[in-house]
């Protein structure tokens, strides 16, 4: 590896090129349609993970409510697709069945417009994140408080969705989605197309996130994570800095949710609640929260492991899953990505990599 001394920019291009080859050529060639559709699902989780990596790994915001934004994006997309499936002027099947509504609820109507729906998949989660974030960060609610609040948000959102069965599908969620902007999702060719879209979006978001991480804003975000007060004394409002990361992460989760719908054909409260929200974060922790690719790999690895383990050990896989979370988070806080860093550092002593959002105060002297 040492012989391979490329400049950073070339490395980045090489990395993206390699990623593109893997996602666009290798995976479709090697995997069956079923496995490819699973990969599409994992990549959706990976998109969520990229956002969490930014907000948590770089910004120190442990957001345990990404399911909410994933769900908002997913529902926005699914609402449009259900309306499109039903055809102009008709109501989605479940609504007639369970809602017994005479006409489409007013808040559904705009989603018939594809442009509105597509915009909503990203903007709606961002708007909610903006609202909650500006309330919460401004009042300096952080750390564990923020984590628990965001978790409670996920719980509240699930209850709200389930309670409005007639218009949201309740626990069932929105299922049986047949078409995707005119393409029949039953057709494996179209499923493949959805996969390619997801892979492309993932790569694009990685590029965007990389730019964000390496921008001045990215440096500032790390500064806020490590010493919020110091940043404040430099004249910045850390609340705004965090807000940007939180809102961007929410937008990514929303987009992921929107793409998940054509890939899997369902969006339901089961993807929004506390458990899926924690699983998103666990994937990031396993992969490596502060790295760019760590979250992606972690999310894919955790989702893949869940599938593989539960297929092979249907009765006992939860032990293995739990043990994996425990071991990696407790003993390898930098995630799998840090293994690489460790190997490197053993070779050439360099700076430590894994930052701690809650670094202990080392010197505790009395105040003067």
């Amino acid at each position, binding site marked *: 590896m040492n012989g391979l001394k490329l400049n950073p920019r070339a490395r980045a291009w090489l990395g993206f090129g390699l990623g593109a080859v893997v996602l666009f050529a290798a995976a479709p060639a090697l995997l069956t349609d079923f496995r490819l559709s699973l990969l599409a699902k994992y990549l959706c989780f990976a998109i969520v993970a990229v956002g969490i990596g930014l907000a948590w790994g770089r910004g120190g915001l*442990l957001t*345990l409510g990404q399911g909410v934004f994933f769900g908002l994006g997913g529902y926005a997309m699914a609402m449009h697709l259900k309306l499109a499936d039903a055809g102009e002027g008709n109501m989605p099947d479940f609504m007639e069945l369970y809602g017994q509504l005479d006409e489409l609820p007013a808040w559904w109507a705009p989603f018939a417009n594809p442009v509105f729906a597509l915009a909503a998949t990203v903007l709606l989660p961002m708007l909610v994140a903006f609202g*909650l974030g500006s*309330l*919460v960060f401004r*009042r*300096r*609610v952080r*750390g*564990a*408080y923020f*984590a*628990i*609040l965001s*978790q*409670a*948000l996920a*719980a*509240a959102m699930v*209850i*709200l969705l*389930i*309670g409005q069965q007639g218009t949201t599908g309740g626990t069932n969620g929105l299922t049986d989605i047949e078409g995707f902007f005119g393409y029949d999702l039953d057709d494996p060719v179209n499923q493949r197309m959805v996969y390619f879209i997801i892979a492309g979006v993932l790569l694009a978001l990685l590029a965007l996130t990389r730019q964000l991480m390496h921008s001045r804003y990215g440096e500032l975000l790390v500064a806020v994570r490590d010493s919020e007060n110091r940043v404040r004394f430099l004249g910045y409002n850390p609340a705004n800095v965090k807000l940007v990361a939180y809102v961007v992460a929410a937008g990514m989760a929303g987009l992921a949710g929107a793409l998940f719908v054509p890939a899997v054909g369902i969006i339901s409260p089961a993807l929004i609640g*506390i458990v899926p929200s*924690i699983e998103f*974060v*666990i994937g990031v*922790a396993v992969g490596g929260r502060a790295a760019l690719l760590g979250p992606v790999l972690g999310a894919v690895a955790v989702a893949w492991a869940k599938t593989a383990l539960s297929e092979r050990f249907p009765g*006992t896989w*939860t*032990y293995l*899953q*739990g*043990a*994996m*979370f*425990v071991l990696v*988070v*407790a*003993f390898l*806080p930098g995630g799998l990505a840090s293994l690489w860093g460790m190997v490197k550092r053993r070779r050439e002593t360099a700076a430590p990599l894994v930052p*701690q*959002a*809650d*670094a*202990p105060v080392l010197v*505790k002297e*009395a*105040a003067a």
Partner: protein
Amino acid sequence: MTVILGQLFTGVSIGAVLLLIALGLALTFGQMNVINMAHGEFIMAGAYTTYVLQQTITDAGLSLLVALPIAFAVAGAMGVLLEWALIRRLYTRPLDTLLVTWGVSLMLQQLARDIFGAPNVQTKAPDILTESTSLGTDLSIANSRLFILGLVVLAVAALTAALKFTPLGRRIRAVVQNRDLAAVSGIPTARVDRLTFFIGSSLAGVAGVALTLLGPIGPTMGTNIIIDAFLVVVVGGIGQLKGSVIVAFVLGMLQAMVEYLTTLSVAKVIVFIAIVAFLQWRPQGLFTLRTRSLA
């Protein structure tokens, strides 16, 4: 009128249950800053302890009374094991405790499923606790709820007294206030941490015994209520019990009243909104320990 009184009592009893669960968290989260997601599984352990005891002690009343101390010990022992194996390595990373203990809670649920079977199990409550005490014409109060209320009052009193008047309580408070100074005063801080965690976890075991009177006993029984309990501690404020006590009852009341007027789903959502609004006003919770060193 009777309905309102009935709802008031319902609110109090919801608060009592919340508090019973939050009390342990007030120690482990509030004092030690550990976000223990496996707390719910310690509750489960307490409930299963009651179940196991009833296999040998068939008298419902006696087994319940015996279960209280044994569940205390069982859950406490699990807590100590968890602290020793994992948490002590994570004191500088409070957020990571959340993820690690969540993995632990997954494993404990599966363990319960493998030991006791996936279906819920039942325990027999003493007859008196399945009945109600009548107050006036229409108003009656469930004895099980009264029992839990009594248990909570007892637990809060005992915990407060223990923190205030016992050597261990002094040590726990000392370690929270100034860990280094405690260490150089000859206090084995690591052992105090473990004991604090023991007590916090033990209280979950006691809560588990009490919950057998109200709800199901199964592998996932702990997961439903745990977030609510964390919110109680968050809103109550770190480091002090009285905040959790007040907030538990206020939230219980709020939920009971809103639920009566609307539905349980709406009540839960409104409670959440109320919490966010409250934290706007007091971001550190109802009560905070302010010291100069925090400034």
